């Protein structure tokens, strides 16, 4: 080794483990500082500021704007619509993916591989693309209607611009995550364990509930929370496919802020949505902490 190489080797401290704790802590904090600043500056700070702004009236502090929001039938209808949409879509996505994952668990071969690949396909399709595609596919005189008419069904009524439109899009978009989670969880259980249970006289439903699901239940809850939250804060899908009224909160907020130029009301709507999300989000975070704690 040349002197120069020795010097530089000496100057650089050894692998991470060797480095003094103080130096390492400083380096670590410095490296994560910028992303953390982004998190604080673009999520925490605007949110906090927004909550403050919504209760700051011209002459005093008060919840008047919230009273107005909750007193407004249209706003409440939108909120209810959003919640129902999120809940029903998330549950449907879970139920469907459950069926797919179960099928995948107990089958092998080319058909199963193709089903698996198809169920993951939405991971690669952005919201805006699938929204537009569904408009063209399911919309009036769309390909789906044409296909149905080929086999003699002519009473097709398009879900486009009805609540069913965004519902279908949300289910479509959110299929891969629970399929991934569930099929990963289900394959953890060996065939022998299932056979042993069947041998002892367990019915399929009982096997499902007591043998197959326990390992997956927590992941499922997390997947549900994530899907629910995603739909709650969605804009593109309801804008492209949804009805004009009631609107989902994303569309409502955008219209309030952009078209009506009413940031005060838009912020109130945003805070209400965040408050609701924080309940589910808190649950998501708690479950996640628990499952990470269990891993470590």
């Amino acid at each position, binding site marked *: *080794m*040349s002197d120069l190489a*020795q010097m530089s*080797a000496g100057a650089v401290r*050894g692998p991470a483990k*060797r480095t003094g704790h103080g130096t390492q802590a400083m380096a670590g904090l410095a490296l994560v500082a910028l992303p953390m600043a982004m998190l604080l500056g673009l999520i925490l700070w605007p949110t906090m500021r927004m909550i403050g702004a919504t209760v700051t009236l011209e002459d005093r502090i008060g919840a008047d704007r919230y009273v107005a929001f909750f007193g407004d039938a249209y706003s409440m209808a939108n909120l209810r619509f959003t919640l129902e949409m999120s809940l029903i879509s998330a549950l449907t996505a879970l139920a469907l993916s459950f069926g797919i994952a179960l099928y995948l668990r107990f089958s092998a071969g080319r058909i199963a591989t193709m089903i698996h690949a198809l169920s993951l396909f939405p991971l690669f399709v952005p919201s805006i693309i699938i929204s537009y595609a569904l408009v063209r596919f399911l919309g009036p005189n769309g390909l789906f209607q044409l296909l149905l008419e080929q086999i003699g069904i002519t009473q097709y009524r398009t879900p486009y611009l009805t609540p069913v439109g965004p519902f279908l899009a949300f289910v479509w978009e959110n299929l891969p995550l629970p399929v991934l989670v569930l099929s990963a969880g289900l394959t953890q259980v060996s065939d022998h364990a299932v056979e042993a249970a069947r041998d002892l006289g367990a019915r399929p439903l009982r096997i499902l509930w007591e043998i197959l699901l326990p390992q997956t239940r927590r992941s499922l809850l997390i997947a549900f929370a994530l899907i629910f939250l995603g739909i709650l804060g969605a804009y593109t899908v309801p804008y492209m496919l949804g009805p004009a009224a009631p609107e989902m909160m994303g569309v409502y907020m955008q219209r309030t802020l952009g078209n009506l130029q009413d940031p005060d009301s838009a912020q109130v709507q945003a805070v209400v949505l965040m408050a609701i999300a924080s309940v589910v989000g808190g649950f998501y975070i708690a479950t996640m902490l628990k499952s990470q704690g269990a891993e470590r």
Partner: protein
Amino acid sequence: MLDIDTITKTFAGAPAVREATFTVQRGELVCLLGPSGCGKSTLLRVISGLTDADSGQIRIEGADVTAMQANRRPTAMVFQSHALWSHMTVAQNVGFGLRVRGMPRAQIAAKIADVLDLVGLSSFGKRLPAELSGGQAQRVALARCLVVEPKILLMDEPFSALDAHLRKALREELKALQRRSGLTTIFVTHDQEEAMELADRIVVMQAGRVEQFGPPGRLYRQPQTLAVAQFIGVMNTCTTAIQDGMARWYGVDVRAAMPPGEAVVLCRPEDLYLDPNGAAATVTRVIDLGPVTKVNLITPEGDLLTWTCARDLAPVQGALVRLMARHLHVFRGGNLVGRIEQPDLVFQEGAMT
């Protein structure tokens, strides 16, 4: 050649290595042997420089290298997981240390070819680690270290992930290679058979301490501590007390010229022999292992004994036999107090008549 001088290493308050001290001679193959968690791997890492010792000194050829980083020490380590770089070919893996040293390309290529030939993988240079079997990968890992011509080769349980057959074959290859090259080698293992077969000398470690350092045979026949005696091979253990120069051993008294007090008396199963005046025991099971026969016994007091003997000497199950030992190892407080060779029986009055 290599001096380990009162090395101590503590992890988060738990001592991993405590005041380890020993000296390795040039060309020697030394095994660090002990159960998992005994600190042997930590000590190896301290020697390599990958882990800092809290106190103590490492000297190589008399030069203090304690403060030296791993990348400047004249040691090279083979890891348990082989740690080959999957993004480099075998040849690139092997050549890495030479490239680091700034050696000219042509020379590197020649050296790679030589060392791959040495480990029997001359045609594998262009392969990727993913295309190697476990044994081949470990050979490449060895070649990667040999090529930089370290003063000391360190091996951290290199064969433990391989199957028994391959492990044995590689062990013999390594021993032959080490003999030929005369490379000072430190080999960590928890497998005593491996250690006995490979090592010129063995360092037995237990709970971070060096229990004993010596040639394999001596560790087996002359264990210095109870831990070594019980870790290496099988021992029949009898807890007793020494009084008036006598020790009670499975119901018979033997002469023990040692200070009185509590003691643990050990003997090897193969050191037992039939003796009409020996300790009485009933045969509970006879197991024919092929080369030897293992006999399990129980004494009237309920102590369990194991005896290995030639097949024609083996009694039948249920038989009452009397056994004596050729050597007894006596320990007190974990340390050897003495050894009783061909112990004298002290006949009790009843037996005398």
